[in-house]
């Protein structure tokens, strides 16, 4: 037994306070608390990755090289048009199989059986990702990584659209001036457009961030045991035959805790985003920037 408190040996005889102290420190609850960390870690990695995808997509979509431009546009409109659920259910399995197929071609060139056998997807043991022999934690990290990649691709397409619009919103006069100074188009992009576009992008990006926070329960579809999974598991009715801590349907309380977590998290995000916005508008040729100048 994993118990923090020594008196937890026989929960049935404890008074309410001690019972809850024991109940809330079971191994299952520890996994629940740890899953909050999983969600925060996912957000911390996904947000910059998605932004990078978005930046690449937007830059490609406004490229002068036609194939690159098509690629960017297809990425943006393609991913934005597919329902999230479909993406999370099918794309991840396809992605995983794609990796394994590549490894299979590389590692097992002598394999003589077909990879697709009816419904089955069979690659050689050495090509499995992760290997069947790998520790369960490796499998979990791998699932987590594919989750991040999927989130980054989906939210990257949306942020690409936001950034694409933001790049075009930079006042034309700024670009003309840059050209008049003899800057190349690359210099204009990096020195004039990119530094100024963020103020136009931020409202759209902050929306995406809020949606991303609320989309994290989709993690469970990808096999990652997130806070919603544990809340549902812990809150469900427990019969005395199967647990030391029988209780009724407590899902309401667990989901209430999740509600508080998500509300608090979005509130903090709003405050931080407001600050960033104020800093970005400083000195910009927007009404926000003008207002700050007058105030100063």
């Amino acid at each position, binding site marked *: *037994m*994993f118990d923090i408190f020594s008196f937890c040996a026989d929960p049935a005889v404890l008074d309410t306070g001690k019972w809850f102290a024991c109940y809330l420190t*079971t*191994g*299952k609850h*520890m*996994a629940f608390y740890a899953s909050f960390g999983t969600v925060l870690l996912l957000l911390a990695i996904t947000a910059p990755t998605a932004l990078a995808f978005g930046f690449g997509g937007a830059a490609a979509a406004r490229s002068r090289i036609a194939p690159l431009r098509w690629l960017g546009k297809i990425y943006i409109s393609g991913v934005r048009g597919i329902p999230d659920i479909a993406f999370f*259910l099918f794309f991840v*399995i396809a992605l*995983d*199989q794609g990796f*394994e197929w590549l490894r299979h071609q590389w590692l097992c060139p002598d394999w003589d059986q077909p990879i697709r*056998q*009816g*419904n*089955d*997807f*069979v*690659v050689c*043991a050495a090509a*499995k990702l992760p290997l*069947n*022999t790998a520790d*369960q934690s490796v*499998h979990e990290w791998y699932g987590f990584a594919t989750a991040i990649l999927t989130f980054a691709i989906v939210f990257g397409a949306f942020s690409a659209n936001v950034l694409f619009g933001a790049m075009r919103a930079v006042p034309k006069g700024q670009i003309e001036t840059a050209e008049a100074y003899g800057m190349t188009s690359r210099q204009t992009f990096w020195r004039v457009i990119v530094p100024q576009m963020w103020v136009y992008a931020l409202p759209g990006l902050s929306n995406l961030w809020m949606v991303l926070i609320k989309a994290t329960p989709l993690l*469970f*579809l990808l*096999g990652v*045991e997130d806070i919603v999974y544990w809340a*549902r*598991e812990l809150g*469900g*009715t427990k*019969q*005395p*035959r*199967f*647990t*030391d*801590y*029988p209780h*009724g*349907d407590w*899902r309401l309380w667990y989901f209430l805790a999740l509600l508080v977590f998500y509300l608090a998290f979005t509130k903090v995000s709003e405050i931080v985003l407001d600050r960033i916005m104020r800093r970005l508008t400083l000195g910009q040729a927007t009404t926000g920037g003008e207002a700050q100048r007058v105030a100063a």
Partner: protein
Amino acid sequence: MKNLILTTAALAITAGAALADGHSVVRMGTEGAYPPYNFLDDNGEVAGFERDLGDELCARAELTCEWVTNEWDSIIPNLVSGNYDVIIAGMSITAERDEVIDFTQAYTQPDPSAYVVLAGNESVDLSSAVIAAQTNTIQASFIAGTGATLVEFATPEETVAAVQAGEADAVLADKSFLAPIADGEADLVMLDQQELIGGGVGMGLRESDGELREAFNAAIQSMKDDGTLNALIAEWEVGEQF
């Protein structure tokens, strides 16, 4: 009889040895939300009838096994795509599923399905009632074929909660799953009417994994022969014995 045990045991051992390279670790996929078959204990570990059974089968087939949980809805797609090697999740053997995956021989007797309703609502007309069942189960397809209205839920827990919330008149599920709930919850009662659907519970494997299936078949047979399977069935109360 003794000879039979010896041959099956020998078969299990040779099958196990033959598998050593292909399946040095066998990953066992389960739902973890269907007591007494499988559930998560207070430490978050997989427990239940199928945990005990699976560990014993792996020991007999000389396999190293690792337990993983997966949502019921996607438990078959993740098997055929190779994320784990075995489904051991209270899954009844049906012809429909057998088209997609393969089953070992059954390790439980066909468990009758039972209805649970709110106390005081025992006289509900089941032929026209609203009945809750878990998605992709034999119970769900059974109700879909009757005149009753089917409401489906992703987890077993939600089907019972739907009855308690008045959202459904009754829940149809395996009797061994509903029995402890009907005992434990004062507001729920089990009806006398039962439905004999399903052909016993077996382990699901990829159709291309014939050797592993034979290894488990032999191990199940040896547990049937020496009575240990019956002992487990009695301990966890998952229906009739063999």
